[in-house]
């Protein structure tokens, strides 16, 4: 039993993915345990809504399950998951913005944070930053999420966002500048 647990823990993503490709549900569950939390949080940092992040997270893993037999990507599984997650989240934001141009509706969506914590003081403290993040573009939020939440190097972020390291550096630079401006304005 201990040996099986140890083996399960030691199985690489590639091994689990190969078993998933053969329809092994248990291997897929292990991949879920490993990656679902980080995927959920990356998406959350882009869409800034828990409900949407959960739906999109589910969509990412549905795609993984369906496409596992056809897996051709040479990239690491985590890179693939992050790429699909950020693409879905960015597309979702763009669709959302087209549907709801009115800021009030966006603000309503963003105000559902800190649910798990139930901490009003925390929510009050976090509110300005969330509102500032909401003013950035979804690509800028994605770059910030990968850099400061996942702590990925710029080169890896470029791979995920299908961009160049230079473009990602510029994206990050603009995001930090915009955040400083917005947060600075709030402090005044």
């Amino acid at each position, binding site marked *: 039993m201990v040996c099986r647990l140890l083996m399960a823990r030691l199985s690489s993503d590639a091994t689990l993915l190969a078993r998933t*490709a053969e*329809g092994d*549900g248990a291997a*897929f*569950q292990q991949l*879920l345990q490993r990656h*679902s*939390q980080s995927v*959920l*949080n990356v998406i*959350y*940092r882009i869409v*800034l809504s*828990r409900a949407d*992040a*959960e739906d999109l*997270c*589910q969509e990412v*893993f*549905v795609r993984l*399950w*369906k*496409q*596992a*037999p*056809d897996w*051709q990507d040479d990239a690491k599984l985590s890179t693939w998951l992050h790429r699909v997650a950020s693409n879905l989240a960015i597309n979702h934001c763009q669709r959302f913005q087209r549907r709801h141009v009115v800021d009030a509706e966006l603000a309503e969506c963003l105000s559902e*944070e*800190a649910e*798990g*914590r139930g901490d009003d003081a*925390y929510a009050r*403290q*976090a509110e300005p*930053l*969330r509102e500032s*993040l909401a003013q950035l573009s979804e690509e800028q939020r994605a770059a*910030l999420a990968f850099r*400061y*939440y996942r*702590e990925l*190097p*710029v*080169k890896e972020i470029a791979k995920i966002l299908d961009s160049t*390291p230079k473009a990602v*550096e510029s994206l990050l630079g603009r995001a*930090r500048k915009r955040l400083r401006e917005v947060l600075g304005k709030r402090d005044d």
Partner: protein
Amino acid sequence: MINYAQALQRYGARLQQWPWWLWPLATLTVLSPRCAALRREFMARERDWQRQLQAGVAELVLSRDLQQRLAAISQQHAQLPSSQPSLAWPLGLASVAALLLGLALGVGEVGQFSVPGDDYQGLAYLDITGSRDIDAWLEGEL
């Protein structure tokens, strides 16, 4: 040409994540006090952003509902059949084609140089074994 500050921006403060061909720049972290200070400053700035952004956006834990939805994926969705071209088929087809081509060529060649033709009679005049020479010699001796 990339400089130390640009390399820091692109590859981060962890020197082990830098590509191998940047090792001369990476050694500057130890050799140059200015570069070491630059790296410390970069790390402090990055930590500050990290702290600020992580404090501002809570780390979500998977809700029970989402856990159930994720766990049900393998039962609720069918996997797509693999569209990758199988290597066995082309190899098998190529073998069969080569075999048929070989047979066709072989049959043609055999027809072209058939043994039971007029040439067979011609071959009879060839004294391959030299037996006619021996006969002539024996006749001479006698």
